[in-house]
């Protein structure tokens, strides 16, 4: 079952690399934000994969379970708790970024990063 973990780790690496690629090379700001949110998802997936135990059980102690058997077989729950927080933070960051994009679109009328988020001194010339 080590294959599962390997596949998951490769997926998270792929997500992070897709995110970094889109941060550099994609011009459309909304797509860039979508791409950057994949970095966060890749990191989350990696941390969940840490807690995974091949052939284990969900870390919830049901009545009637043997405690020592549970301790030996349950997945490690601490990373899961961390990821919960991280997912919510990622969503709120995305929401704030999109809100700022919506405000800026009204001023520039385009979604291109080269126009919207250029150097400050060039933007001053552009607006004059």
């Amino acid at each position, binding site marked *: 079952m080590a294959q*599962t973990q390997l*596949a*998951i780790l*490769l*997926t998270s690496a*792929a*997500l992070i690399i*897709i995110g970094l690629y*889109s941060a550099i090379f*994609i011009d*459309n700001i*909304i*797509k860039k*934000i*979508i*791409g950057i*949110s*994949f970095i966060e*998802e890749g990191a*989350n*997936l990696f941390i*969940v*994969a840490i*807690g*995974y*135990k091949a052939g*284990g*059980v*969900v*870390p*919830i102690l049901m009545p009637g379970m043997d405690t020592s058997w549970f301790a030996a077989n349950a*997945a490690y729950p601490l990373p*899961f708790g961390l*990821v*919960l927080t991280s*997912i*919510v933070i*990622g*969503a709120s960051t*995305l*929401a704030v970024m*999109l*809100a700022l*994009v*919506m405000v800026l*679109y009204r001023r520039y009328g385009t*979604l291109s990063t080269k126009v919207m988020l250029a150097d400050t001194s060039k933007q001053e010339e552009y607006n004059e």
Partner: protein
Amino acid sequence: MIEFVLCIIVILSAILALIQKDLLKAAILTGFSGGALAVLFQILLAPDVALTQAIVGAAIVPVFIALAVKKTQRSDS
């Protein structure tokens, strides 16, 4: 076996979302990626994370992006 399929769905829909010309399609494909990720979390024995990710990744984030697209422009140019 299903986890390999899900991994491929996650990566493929992420790439497809970034090469779409139509931003609304990109939003929907982001939802695909987030939903597949939620199922993947369930397979990785984290049902609580899976529930949160299913709501946030498959519903809230695509809706946010779709709203942003509706308020701005739909085509990528």
